[in-house]
């Protein structure tokens, strides 16, 4: 079995291709940096970097919440072992990410140009005034975190309570949360994507915008969840419950969202390209200036083509070392996607990586990691008394009901 050797070889090739792609994206960036015109102020530079890092990590919380909702909606068995730590990830949305959002609330007037415009002189703003006014922005932004907090903590509270009692009533309650929650999730995520990213260019229209952010978020989350699962299995806490099929199923979803993101982003681009209406095209025109064009190509080839081809084979999806590399790549790609959405407003002539970018990433990432770790060690590592936990561990437990009691007696 030199399968492992085969994949480490593939991995090296992949790293080489990835490196070239990255070089292609970054080197023109350095060149165009010299030609920068109206430079944003230092506070703005920090603000945009912080917003980019924040939207990047918000993806993790929202993506995790989606996985929890998905688990309950489909009465899934495969995701039982990973559900607890995914619940912890989703609980980062409140209050941790709300606290991390404070700088954005404080800097909002400097980051979002529409806040300083008079709606009577700007038609686009005037017609969108119901959403795009300062009061609505602050109230909705803060409310979103409370809504997410209610949903994520409600789900985790029942999950933790079930650890003690084992009552099926908690599973039923979690399903109720999930059934309504998926709609709340969709609307709140869309509002977040519109308010915090799309409104940077308030004239823009795209009904796909929220879905694009959603698809990228879940994609990046699945890569992360895969790696955390490997780590927790190797370290011990999940050794008894994580089976090859766990990696199989996370891998398959990771692959599915690779395709889904491309499908959704292409749909957005294609409709705008085809209709060629200036109110929409200006968004992409800005993103064809300077090295932003290369970032666009990086997203096509790095966010889709490369992971798509790499994950096609089922044995690739289940090779933990291989997927770890791809998950790291997914982080980079999702971060570049966030840059692509946010940064052209600050740096219209090309990519500009400043010291603020890694610092903001490190600060937010560090705080989230610290909170996640604390949560993880405070509670049991996986749902102890989930109705499907035995099945997950590969143990067959006969139904408690008498064999002739149900199902019309057809035996």
């Amino acid at each position: 079995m030199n399968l492992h050797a085969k994949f480490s070889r593939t991995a090296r090739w992949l790293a080489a291709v990835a490196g070239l792609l990255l070089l292609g994206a970054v080197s023109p960036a350095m060149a165009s940096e010299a030609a920068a015109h109206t430079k944003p102020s230092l506070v703005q530079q920090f603000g945009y970097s912080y917003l980019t890092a924040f939207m990047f990590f918000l993806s993790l919380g929202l993506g995790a919440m989606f996985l929890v909702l998905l688990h309950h909606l489909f009465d899934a068995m495969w995701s039982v072992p990973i559900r607890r730590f995914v619940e912890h990830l989703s609980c980062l949305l409140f209050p941790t990410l709300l606290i991390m959002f404070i700088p954005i609330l404080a800097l909002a007037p400097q980051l979002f140009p529409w806040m300083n415009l008079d709606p009577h002189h700007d038609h686009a703003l005037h017609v969108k005034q119901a959403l795009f006014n300062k009061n609505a922005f602050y109230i909705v932004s803060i409310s979103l975190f409370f809504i997410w907090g209610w949903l994520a903590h409600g789900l985790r509270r029942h999950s933790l309570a079930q650890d003690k009692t084992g009552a099926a009533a908690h599973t039923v309650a979690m399903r109720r949360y999930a059934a309504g929650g998926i709609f709340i999730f969709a609307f709140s995520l869309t509002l977040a994507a519109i308010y915090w990213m799309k409104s940077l260019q308030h004239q823009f229209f795209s009904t796909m915008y929220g879905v694009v952010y959603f698809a990228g978020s879940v994609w990046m989350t699945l890569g992360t969840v895969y790696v955390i699962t490997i780590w927790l299995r190797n370290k011990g806490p999940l050794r008894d419950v994580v089976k090859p099929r766990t990696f199989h199923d996370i891998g398959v979803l990771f692959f599915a969202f690779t395709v889904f993101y491309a499908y959704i982003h292409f749909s957005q681009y294609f409709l705008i390209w085809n209709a060629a209406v200036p109110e929409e095209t200006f968004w992409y025109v800005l993103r064809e200036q300077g090295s932003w064009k290369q970032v666009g190509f990086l997203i096509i080839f790095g966010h889709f083509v490369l992971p798509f081809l790499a994950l096609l084979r089922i044995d690739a999806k289940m090779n933990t070392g291989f997927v770890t590399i791809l998950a790291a790549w997914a982080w980079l790609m999702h971060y570049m996607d966030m840059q692509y959405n946010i940064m052209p407003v600050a740096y219209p002539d090309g990519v500009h990586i400043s010291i603020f970018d890694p610092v903001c990433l490190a600060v937010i990432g560090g705080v989230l990691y610290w909170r996640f770790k604390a949560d993880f060690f405070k509670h049991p590592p996986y749902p102890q008394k989930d109705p499907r936990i035995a099945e997950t561990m590969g143990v067959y437990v006969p139904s408690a009901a008498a064999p002739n009691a149900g199902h019309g007696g057809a035996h």
Partner: protein
Amino acid sequence: MSATSTPFGLIAEFDKPADAMHAAEKIRDAGFTRWDVHTPFPVHGMDAAMGIKNSPVGYFTFLGGLTGYTSGMIMIWWMNAFDYTLAVGGKPMFSPFFAFPVSYELTILFASFATLFGMFTLNRLPRLHHPLLKNRRFTSGASHDKFIVVVETGDPKFSETETRKLLEIAGSQHIEMVEE
């Protein structure tokens, strides 16, 4: 029925899926290549017990998809930008953007055809008849309540006495030779 019929293979009947699975493990470990297990329902773990690797049908799918995508792109380029240029809506004569949805549909179409026909080719289908279908015990058992292991005489490791002994040790209650 002619008197000079050639033997096709040994069939061994089992009453329980677990027995058939253990027999499959023995046959796998003995190194047989031309054999199969027929069960009335899918038995979990049978793939591993039989040592079946990932199906090569995926290669057909991939190549079919690649062909579909390429032919879609070439077709649209040929029709709109080469053979009969036609300006529509001020768009370029050819662009991968507008050609993509059609190419994508053709990717799926060709990939699914390739999957279906690749599966047929690998399974040597369609065929008019199979020797096993002549055997009453096989037809009534494999689709009802028996788990049947079949080892073909064409297998290089096949020997009527040795293989029969192997299946007996595996616990089969009924072993018989099926003719072509």
